[in-house]
């Protein structure tokens, strides 16, 4: 069957189930309810004063009674500094557990070491918002029999609510916790800030283990994860390296191209009609996205504009803007550098939020719905403004859906920023390899060579033209770029599907096929 973007979607996949094709960004949402039933959270009981402390991670995992075919979940707040996921998976491997579905909120380069577990069928299924490094390459080459499922941050919450992901065991790394399992990421030597992605896992998992390298006297405040969902607590020497959360993504770029793009994007924002007192704003970390914040900050000061809130991945740059009084509030589902933790802990205007409140489409209104302006990156964009943030120009899985489609769906103005070329490959395609965010939710593309407005949003194009912007037709820009580099040879794929890209409402927006090598 074909979805509304013309992508061929299988009706059923063994081990995953029936699939529903994408029908438009708001088609399902506009009903006002979700057709799928939510599953009940597990019923648990604990005797009074019964200790939850386990002497090691292995003991805790053994107590959770792991079985073949289980689903295990993790958060990725430590990003590239995480060591708990790999350690836990090796323990399960040593215990001989097979056929595990790994449902981490995202997988990074630091998880390369679990690749052998995909090869020996310890891990046979993966749900994640992003997959990078060697795992991404191996999956793209068909290491798993079953396709992985890429979801958005909001979509993951929906998937857990509806039982598409049914966690048997959740292991939550926390930079501080008490003996009952109240836990947080906002203080301790490995502080990583918000723990927002783990909240839904704790609520729905049959067994929950909190792992910390900083056991604090009861109660651990703030109660980011609460004891009523936690079965076991483990104290370890280290949960990882918080300094690797950022890996350069929170520094304002020195790249002249990124700065040029960011400057144009900030000008677009200034003249969009939405840059006014009380506006809300989200930017990604790293590259041109974060640099947009730098220029927006300058413009806010110049025009004495005060925003309402910044949302999503919060960097120390956002904290600076809060402290300068440029925004009233930060809503933090994920902290992009450890330096944010202090603000999260001590400033009541800096609020930790769970992923459900951030971006789950199926509730009475997530915060992405309140966004005025979001600035997002892209690996590729096509002439219909569909965006790929998951597969690279070589066809390998190497990125993350993250909150991309969630925020694009909610924002009044979605600005995609990216350079015209990556190495020698133009980023504008007739058709992107993999659609993650549908073009109907993307308003503007900004590259260093010009601004392209989605023709669906005529009023915006008129606004920008009236303000003196040279708006380019995306087809003309594509032609110009192809004229410089030539058109890249198409990547060849096998028929086997190695990945399904789920839109936030649970429908399948695209499939990723195995690379021909």
């Amino acid at each position, binding site marked *: 069957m074909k979805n509304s973007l013309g992508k061929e979607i299988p009706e059923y996949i063994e081990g995953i189930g029936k699939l529903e094709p994408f029908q438009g960004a708001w088609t399902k949402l506009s009903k006002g309810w979700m057709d799928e039933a939510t599953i009940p959270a597990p019923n648990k009981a604990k005797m009074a004063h019964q200790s939850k402390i386990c002497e090691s991670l292995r003991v805790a995992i053994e107590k959770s009674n792991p079985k073949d075919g289980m689903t295990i979940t993790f958060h990725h707040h430590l990003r590239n500094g995480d060591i708990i996921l790999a350690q836990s998976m090796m323990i399960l491997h040593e215990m001989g557990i097979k056929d595990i579905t790994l449902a981490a909120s995202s997988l990074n380069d630091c998880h390369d070491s679990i690749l052998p577990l995909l090869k020996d069928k310890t891990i046979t299924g993966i749900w994640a918002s992003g997959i990078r490094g060697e795992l991404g390459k191996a999956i793209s080459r068909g290491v798993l029999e079953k396709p992985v499922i890429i979801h958005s941050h909001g979509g993951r919450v929906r998937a857990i609510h509806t039982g598409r992901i049914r966690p048997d065991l959740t292991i939550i790394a926390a930079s501080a916790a008490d003996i009952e399992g109240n836990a947080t990421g906002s203080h301790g030597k490995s502080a990583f800030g918000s723990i927002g992605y783990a909240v839904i896992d704790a609520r729905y998992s049959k067994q929950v283990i909190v792992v910390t390298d900083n056991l604090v006297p009861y109660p651990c405040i703030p109660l980011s994860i609460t004891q009523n969902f936690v079965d076991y607590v483990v104290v370890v020497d280290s949960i990882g390296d918080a300094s690797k959360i950022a890996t350069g993504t929170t520094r304002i770029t*020195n790249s002249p*191209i990124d*700065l*040029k793009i960011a400057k144009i994007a900030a000008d677009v924002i200034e003249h969009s009609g939405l840059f006014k007192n009380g506006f809300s704003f989200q930017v990604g970390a790293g590259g041109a996205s974060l640099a947009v914040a730098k220029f927006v900050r300058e413009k806010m000061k110049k025009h004495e504009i005060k925003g309402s809130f910044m949302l999503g991945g919060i960097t120390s740059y956002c904290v600076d803007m809060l402290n300068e009084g440029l925004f009233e509030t930060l809503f933090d589902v994920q902290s992009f550098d450890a330096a944010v933790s202090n603000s999260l802990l001590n400033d009541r205007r800096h609020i930790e939020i769970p992923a459900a409140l951030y971006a789950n489409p199926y509730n009475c209104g997530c915060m992405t719905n309140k966004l005025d302006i979001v600035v997002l990156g892209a690996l590729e964009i096509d002439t219909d403004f569909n965006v790929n943030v998951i597969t690279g120009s070589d066809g390998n899985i190497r990125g993350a859906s993250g909150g991309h489609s969630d925020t694009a769906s909610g924002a009044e103005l979605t600005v995609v920023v990216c350079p015209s070329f990556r190495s020698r490959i133009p980023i504008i395609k007739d058709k992107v390899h993999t659609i993650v965010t549908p073009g109907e939710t993307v308003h503007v593309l900004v590259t*260093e060579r010009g601004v392209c407005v989605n023709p669906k949003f005529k009023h915006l194009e008129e606004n920008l033209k009236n303000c003196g912007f040279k708006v380019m037709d995306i087809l003309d820009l594509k032609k110009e770029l192809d004229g*410089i580099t030539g058109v890249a040879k198409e990547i060849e794929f096998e028929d086997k599907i190695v990945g399904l890209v789920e839109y936030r409402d649970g429908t399948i927006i695209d499939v990723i096929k195995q690379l021909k090598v």
Partner: protein
Amino acid sequence: MLYIPGNNPAMLQQGGVYGADSLLLDLEDAVAINQKDAARILVKHLITNINYYDSEVCVRINHLSTPFGKADLEAIVPLQPHAIRYPKTETAKELLELIDMIEEIENRHNLAHNKMEIHAMIETAMGVQNVFEIAGCHIRVGAITIGGQDLTADMNIIYTPDGAGIDFARKRIVMAAKAHHIDVIDTVFVDINDEEGLRRETEYSKKIGFTGKAVINPRQIDIIHEVYNPTEDEIRRAYRIVKEFYKNKEAGIGVFAIDGKMIDAPIVTRAQYVLELAGVSVGE
């Protein structure tokens, strides 16, 4: 004016996107000896194939005393960029010899002699001494520039952030350009992370009469534009002066006052220049 090494394809193809008034595609000091041929071929192809939008394109060739200068001319002159920049110019005679060679190549390609400018770089003590003759030696000399790094090397002094060692040269070169009514471009500011230092030096350049400044990194362009572009207040005042000038001219009055200050011909000329920079026209 943005310097771009002639052997860097990525930088060359992106050169036009930064909004520089002009680009200097460099075949000389930015290119290693063993890359000279590659750079020449690359620049030749990119000039004809890349859209540099609103930026003028200049090419800095190697000096004719090197084994590369003549080949550079043969490759670049037929393409007729906006200008050819000649490094380490020391005398009017050598510049005239260069222009002769250029015009001989132009003749062979049936090209007019009035399109491409010649820019002379002054980067030796001898060049500074002879700069008045150099600037005025030929109608095709459209600009002179100072090369601070080479000049300090030639003077055997260390380049200091305050520019003390080349201050005399700067002012002498500016005066030569003004005497011949041609553009004069200041040397690069090498610390790309020192934005305040760049701003200070650019403000000084503007104050002593340079009409522009060379940059080695696109991040420096905005600061230079901010300094050189007239402010909103300057534009408003210039507009008022020129408007009043036209009104008084009709009445046969050459000197008049605005807010109690005398306005005469030189001030009007300056105001007209400000409006020209800002792209503002005043109807007579």
